């Protein structure tokens, strides 16, 4: 993944600041609870939701099992339709391919459709280094870009900002990037949207090159699909002369018909809409209609490694709906930035350590960034058992021997628990000396900083049983 997240502090430390920031807490709480309630309503409308969810799971699992075949089929179909397919093993390769393609057009700027894959590889930064400016055109991504900020949510990247903050940002920064914000801009949603519309319009009309991702790639036809709400994506997908799409290999589905499932589950899970306002689909190039050149960059960047892990591979089923973020109690308090990745929340906690490995401090801490409450698994439209993968990744982290003290403590505890006589002696000793225990014994700060310890009983249960029932 891109370098901007390297060196992130471990999750607990990064989360601490967010937890103690009342504005951020309020913004996140309001936003996640609103969308959470709406999603529940939208899903409850369908009496076959469980079957749709199971169908989605199966289509994805089937595709992943035969990914080699479907990718070749996809490549052939895209090529037949007039597109060019490029294969990128990692972020650096993908960035180099896209940069060279843009340079070949002679252009110095591109407009961008909201895309997770290009953020994952840090494409904007790579283009900038080559003297090419990338303009984000999704409203929330625009807010993030203008604020020189990082996205904190998959679907609503500026979820951590409120209207007042956005108004100030537009007024201050739009002029540096193009058309300035209108005078006397208010913080009403309509005014903010109009300011963004005017600012972006000149970019759409000028741009010769667009960069996108895709929600789905249909192997049988070579069709790419983007779902969006604003129509800005469609501007980028239709107006420029050259379109470059960077897509993770796991976004493949076998047939056109499979879309039937996901076009129902994705909008309801993500924006709580029955149907999203804009669904754009394109197959290669078409004479006299839309871009004249189309390039598809197929991105691996850790995905085949993830696929090799029997438990972890289910993370590749993800359709990036964000439902798991919106119900996650940890995300709600820690915010997206603490996850140190473009993929925050529960899905980020299982995806980033698989795509990037568990060696960095932040990646080794992500599998523990969950109380395992299971709310994410309940809402996931492709039934990814996120708690199961989290525990699996914790085993990986524990195995690499990072937490030596903890490992030693667990070994001792397990040994004691496997020796009931020792355990009982310990319990009795603790019970007998309980009056002398300090309220905050050394080594318990993580607990006692915010919580009292329970008072110990006069005797353990096993002694009560021995005296009263045997």
């Amino acid at each position: 993944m891109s370098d901007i997240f390297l060196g992130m502090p471990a999750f607990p430390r990064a989360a601490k600041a967010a937890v103690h920031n009342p504005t951020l807490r309020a913004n996140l709480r309001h936003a996640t609870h609103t969308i959470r309630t709406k999603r529940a309503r939208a899903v409850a409308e369908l009496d076959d939701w469980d079957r749709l969810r199971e169908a989605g799971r199966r289509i994805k699992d089937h595709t992943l099992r035969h990914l080699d075949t479907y990718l070749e089929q996809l490549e052939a179909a895209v090529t037949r339709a007039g597109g060019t397919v490029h294969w990128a093993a990692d972020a650096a390769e993908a960035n180099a391919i896209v940069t060279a393609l843009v340079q070949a057009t002679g252009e110095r700027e591109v407009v961008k459709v909201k895309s997770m894959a290009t953020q994952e590889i840090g494409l904007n930064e790579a283009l900038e280094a080559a003297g090419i400016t990338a303009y984000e055109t999704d409203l929330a991504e625009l807010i993030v870009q203008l604020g020189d900020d990082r996205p904190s949510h998959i679907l609503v990247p500026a979820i951590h900002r409120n209207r007042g903050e956005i108004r100030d940002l537009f007024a201050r920064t739009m002029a540096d990037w193009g058309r300035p914000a209108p005078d006397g801009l208010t913080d009403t949603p309509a005014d903010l949207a109009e300011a963004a519309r005017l600012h972006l319009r000149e970019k759409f009309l000028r741009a010769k090159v667009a960069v996108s991702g895709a929600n789905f790639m249909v192997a049988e036809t070579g069709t790419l699909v983007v779902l969006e709400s604003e129509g800005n994506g469609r501007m980028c997908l239709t107006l420029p002369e050259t379109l470059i799409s960077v897509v993770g290999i796991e976004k493949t589905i076998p047939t056109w018909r499979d879309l039937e499932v996901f076009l129902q589950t994705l909008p309801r899970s993500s924006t709580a809409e029955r149907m999203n306002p804009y669904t754009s689909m394109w197959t290669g190039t078409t004479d006299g209609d839309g871009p004249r050149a189309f390039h598809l960059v197929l991105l691996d960047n850790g995905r085949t490694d993830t696929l090799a892990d029997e438990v972890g591979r289910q993370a590749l089923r993800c359709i990036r709906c964000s439902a798991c973020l919106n119900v996650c109690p940890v995300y709600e308090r820690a915010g997206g930035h603490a996850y140190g990745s473009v993929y925050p929340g529960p899905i980020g906690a299982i995806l980033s350590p698989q795509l990037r490995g568990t060696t960095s401090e932040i990646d080794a801490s992500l599998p523990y960034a969950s109380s395992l409450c299971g709310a994410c698994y309940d809402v996931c439209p492709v039934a990814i058992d996120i708690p199961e993968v989290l525990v699996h990744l914790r085993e990986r982290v524990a195995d690499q021997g990072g937490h030596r003290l903890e490992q030693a403590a667990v070994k001792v505890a397990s040994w004691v628990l496997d020796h009931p006589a020792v355990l009982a002696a310990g319990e009795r000793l603790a019970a007998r000396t309980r009056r002398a225990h300090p309220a905050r014994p050394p080594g318990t700060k993580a607990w006692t900083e915010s919580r009292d310890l329970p008072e110990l009983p006069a005797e353990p249960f096993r002694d009560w049983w021995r005296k009263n029932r045997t």
Partner: protein
Amino acid sequence: MRVALFVTCVNDAVYPSTGVATVRILERLGVEVDFPADQTCCGQPPYNTGYRRETEPLVRRTVRAFEEYAYVVTPSGSCAAMVRHHYASFGDRAAALAPRTYELSEFLVDVLGVTDVGAYFPYTVTYHPSCHGLRALGLGTGPRRLLDAVKGLDLRELPGAEECCGFGGTFAVKNPDVSAAMGRDKVRHALSTGADVLCGADNSCLMHLGGILRREGAPLRTLHLAEILASTEEEPWRE
């Protein structure tokens, strides 16, 4: 009917009164209770923290202690969920224990078919369902029906009941700030009900919430479901 009580390590060492209450309820309903003395811990804490190897001896011990019983009853949703959902990955003998292990309310409602256990508890109560009870075991309305049938008890709806309290085992100490923030929100909701008692079916969650309540000097105490159900007019609950 004979059942084995799996009291759990936390209840044994810290909350023996929950174990005693469980015994009293079951015996009152005519169930014969055994306490296999070889039992300790189901292995959930090391398992959830990523220490599968260290979990294995605990799983083996639990299986040996309980496998001769047709019913194993435990006053802990999370330990029941550990056995139910994760024991299968430790081999056939462990897998065989899974369908015979019941969380207390589940055993009362689904196996014995009772919701009125003859309890008396003249206090205002709100119930936190806990993630393992709610999502992992799918306990549904069972615990609330049991509480509804308790004489003298005034049950208040807990806002945001389905949300995690922030305990999460080692999560509570690995991510103390987020954990405490979640706990404080849960406590705020519980206080808003005006209840005297915050009830739950998992003492680990209650240990975390009770710790916050005591630290904040809040006028609300935590109590395990079993202790409410064990309380009768003849022998009412006492501290």
